[in-house]
């Protein structure tokens, strides 16, 4: 019995290379973290985050729970390869330890155990062990078969599209595909020659040995097995398979409380490398399944970033609806990664690849718009009024006057003293500029609006536009409660400040991307609608809701294609023949009402129509009640 054979060299080279490489890369990444993030990571190491990370690594990286839930067949494919391979390594190592000559063997002894120990006794334990090993190999091979089928017929595993690959990826993929079949054949031939093996390798081996010179044929297949493993490990850092080591690091960083933020840095870099190119985002993307644009999805953005390609089109030609982020099984903050690229106005990549892409260097470009002068010279005649409540309609609401009038009616019915901030002239809230990557210009508009809000001394700001709502909440320094009108109306209902009639209209509610996936407000508008009408549920709602197509985040998509997305979305929403399609975003309303035969209305309009003429006497201010609600929730 031999202890070493030259064929293990490719495997050994690959294995030690990838181990050392992973450690070095992680150290580099750690050193590039900001001081605060380093502390977070260190604290995370000694807290519950560590345990949670281990659990998440097991559930997501090995079992692939999220993919299993969304697409069972695809999930099985990923699970069989990841979890199956993991178990094969664990059981293989144990096997080498228990049945091998010595304990604590080098890794190649476990991987090529059958070659060095063709028949290891006939004890019951040995037979059970052989059976387990065969079972695991069969488990992996079944997944591999699905993977091969998926490559050519994505529909089988429930995918509409599969990811397009480059040459480098194809070589690595072929190497990965060869690993397990070559192991099967090599083990089978060896077992056939020695009359060992269980149901898979034993049977196949006996059959092959019946007409082939098994002993001499096995040797080249052991070489093939070792070579494919070696090639796969060497190519791993420059292909999408880098996600295998990186994802572990990502999960640990995320559980320690590190987020993407708005600048290029380690976390964004780790996220980009953690993308496994599974293609779940392509399936979720409306730009893909409606307009047929299949090159801008996160998979391709991340890959272009890894290769330092020009990403201008990929970064900007996106609705930022967040459907891909919701679908991503790795949990990459896709929109934040994209925004970093939009803010980079130099048009040059932020990173440069060194050593054929095995290492990357961060480039510090001079910011393109470094001018200190003010961009906007706003001459305004806005007269600030002192009020408790400010109503900020937003640019888009001025194009849908129905919403504006409905809100004024509601304010009147609620006896609220309101200053209509942008009634005559109003500046943009700044979010469209921010989405275009022009943060500095956006800041000028934010300062202009903040100034007006401060001067009016209001305690509450109601806006009708979810786009404005998000930036008011995230980027304004104002001491004012920000409410979207759905929340405001919900408060009025809870306070019994207004009485409503009940109409028996069938209403479908469309979640706007900005209010739903971005702001996380799903319940309030639904409560409001169901207070005055019959709310019917549709498959595309809440986190799975569609984008109307007219998102301000997309600067490149021509109006004809935006229209196609709107037509598709409204077709799905009106499948159950509702009386009204309700939404809570003026932009969605404007877009849908152009293409819909069914009436499209904002929730404010639906509610305003049903205001009862008999009003309740009991009027309390909504803000007091909100505080009570918060206390109830907390206590």
């Amino acid at each position: 019995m031999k202890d070493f054979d030259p064929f293990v060299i490719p495997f050994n080279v690959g294995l030690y290379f990838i181990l050392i490489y992973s450690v070095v890369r992680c150290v580099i990444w750690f050193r590039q973290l900001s001081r605060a993030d380093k502390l977070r990571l260190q604290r995370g190491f000694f807290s519950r985050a560590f345990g949670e990370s281990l659990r998440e690594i097991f559930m997501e990286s090995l079992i692939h729970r999220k993919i299993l839930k969304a697409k069972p067949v695809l999930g099985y494919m990923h699970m069989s390869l990841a979890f199956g391979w993991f178990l094969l390594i664990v059981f293989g190592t144990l096997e080498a330890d228990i049945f091998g000559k010595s304990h604590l063997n080098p890794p190649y002894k476990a991987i090529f155990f059958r070659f060095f120990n063709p028949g290891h006794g006939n004890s019951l334990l040995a037979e059970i062990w052989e059976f387990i090993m065969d079972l695991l190999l069969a488990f992996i091979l079944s997944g591999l078969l699905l993977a091969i089928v998926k490559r050519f017929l994505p529909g089988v595993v429930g995918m509409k599209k599969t990811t397009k690959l480059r040459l480098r990826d194809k070589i690595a993929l072929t190497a990965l595909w060869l690993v397990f079949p070559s192991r099967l054949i090599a083990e089978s031939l060896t077992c056939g020659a020695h009359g060992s093996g269980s149901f898979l390798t034993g049977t196949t081996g006996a059959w092959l040995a019946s007409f082939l010179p098994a002993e001499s044929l096995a040797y080249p297949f052991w070489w093939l097995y070792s070579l494919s493993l070696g090639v796969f490990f060497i190519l791993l850092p420059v292909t999408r398979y880098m996600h295998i080591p990186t994802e572990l690091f990502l999960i640990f960083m995320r559980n320690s409380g590190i987020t993407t933020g708005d600048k290029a840095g380690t976390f964004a870099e780790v996220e980009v490398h953690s993308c496994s190119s599974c293609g779940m985002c392509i399936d979720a993307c409306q730009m893909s399944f409606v307009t047929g644009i299949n090159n801008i999805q996160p998979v391709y953005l991340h890959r272009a970033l890894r290769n330092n390609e020009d990403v201008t089109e990929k970064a900007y030609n996106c609705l930022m609806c967040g459907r891909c982020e919701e679908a991503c099984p790795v949990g990459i903050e896709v929109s934040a990664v994209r925004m970093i690229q939009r803010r980079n106005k130099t048009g040059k990549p932020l990173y440069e690849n060194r050593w054929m892409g095995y290492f990357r260097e961060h480039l510090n470009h001079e910011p393109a718009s470094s001018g200190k002068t003010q961009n906007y010279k706003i001459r305004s005649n806005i007269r600030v009024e002192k009020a408790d409540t400010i109503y900020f309609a937003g640019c888009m609401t001025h194009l849908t006057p129905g919403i504006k009038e409905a809100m004024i009616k509601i304010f009147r019915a609620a006896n609220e003293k309101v200053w209509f901030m942008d009634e005559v002239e109003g500046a943009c809230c700044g979010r469209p500029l921010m989405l275009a990557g022009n943060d500095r210009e956006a800041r000028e508009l934010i300062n202009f609006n903040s100034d007006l809000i401060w001067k009016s001394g209001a305690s509450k700001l109601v806006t009708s536009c979810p786009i404005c709502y998000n930036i008011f909440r995230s980027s304004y320094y104002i001491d004012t409660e920000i409410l979207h009108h759905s929340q405001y109306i919900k408060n009025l209902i809870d306070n019994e400040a207004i009485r409503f009639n009940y109409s028996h209209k069938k209403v479908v509610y469309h979640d706007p991307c900005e209010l739903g996936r971005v702001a996380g407000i799903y319940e309030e508008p639904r409560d409001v609608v169901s207070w005055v009408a019959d709310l019917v549920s549709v498959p595309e709602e809440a986190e799975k809701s569609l984008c109307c197509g007219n998102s301000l985040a997309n600067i490149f998509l021509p109006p004809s294609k935006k229209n196609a997305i709107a037509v598709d979305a409204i077709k799905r929403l009106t499948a159950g023949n509702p009386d009204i399609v309700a939404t809570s975003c003026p932009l969605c309303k404007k877009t849908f009402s152009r293409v819909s035969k069914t009436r499209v209305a904002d929730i404010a309009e639906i509610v305003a129509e049903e205001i009862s003429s008999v009003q309740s006497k009991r009027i309390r201010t909504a803000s007091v009640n909100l505080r009570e609600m918060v206390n109830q929730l907390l206590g």
Partner: protein
Amino acid sequence: MKSNKFGFTLSEPRVIDYEANNRQIAEYIFDHEPTFRLCIECGACAATCTAGQFMTFSLRELNVLLKRGENDIPRQRIKNCMFCGKCILVCPRGVNTRGVIFHAREAFRKIEGNERF
């Protein structure tokens, strides 16, 4: 305007001098945002414009000047856009107006090396 001393002015000749004009910026926008060609200069975008309430900003004017190749005024004023997107919604021709402005800024940056954008 030379002088206003005598209560009347001398007007510059109003001939479009295509020899002196530079259509490079317009060509860049045509290449990157083909819907720019659809514009009929109706002025709906300028009428609804948020930025136009506070500043001198008319997308219609800029479109005309850019197509003529008179880039001096657009270079100054194109910064004033607030990107709010109302103009796209009112455009009767389906021009991706924000795309026009985005690419015009890019063109000024790339072709003229104007780092201000």
